[in-house]
């Protein structure tokens, strides 16, 4: 399926854009993260890397659908 991923902070810099469009052949958030880490090796060095689906933190087995709003969440540092 065609998905679009929102990028923030350091992940925006690593990917070089604030969104990333890709053909995703897996089903779950965990598979998407593995896919992205293979494609962008520098993501491996981060303290944490989470996937958000429709404004909620996803578990590794959360199913991803084509219309979901997906975001990559590097370590947060608000406050």
């Amino acid at each position: 399926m065609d998905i679009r991923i929102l990028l923030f902070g350091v992940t925006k810099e690593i990917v070089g854009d604030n969104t990333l469009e890709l053909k995703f052949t897996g089903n779950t958030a965990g598979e998407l993260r593995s896919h992205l880490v293979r494609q962008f090796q520098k993501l491996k060095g981060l303290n944490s890397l989470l996937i958000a689906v429709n404004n909620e933190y996803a578990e590794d087995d959360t199913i991803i659908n084509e219309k979901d709003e997906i975001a990559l969440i590097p370590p947060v540092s608000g406050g």
Partner: protein
Amino acid sequence: MEADMNELTNEKLQLDKIVDQVRNDQCGGIDVFIGTVRNATEEREVRYLDFEAYESMALSEMNKISEQAKEKFEINNMAIHHRLGRLEIGEEAVIIAASAPHRDAAFLACRFAIDTLKKTVPIWKKEVFVDGEVWVSVHP
């Protein structure tokens, strides 16, 4: 449940306005936490900070925090305001206010809120130094 009093803004945070939001005649104590921009991180001089958020999710996570705080502690109201964009040294990045009939709950709720915010709310801080910049907490 009342409407959430939480906000993300590019404008300077207004302490009085935020405290007035949580105030009411039943409350005997209000605790307020103000997170300000320090001039140095591990002795390295900071020029300014830049905050960025995944705004829709950040607001949703902030609302979760105030709902959880109301469940956990006997508070009347909580407001969480976070600033985005460029912040100079000494400016406020976040202000959290909690009102309660008794002060213990206000203190505990405020502390819970800032501790949780720093873990869960998708906001990112870039520190800009004279000689470079870094996204905070990103690398080990």
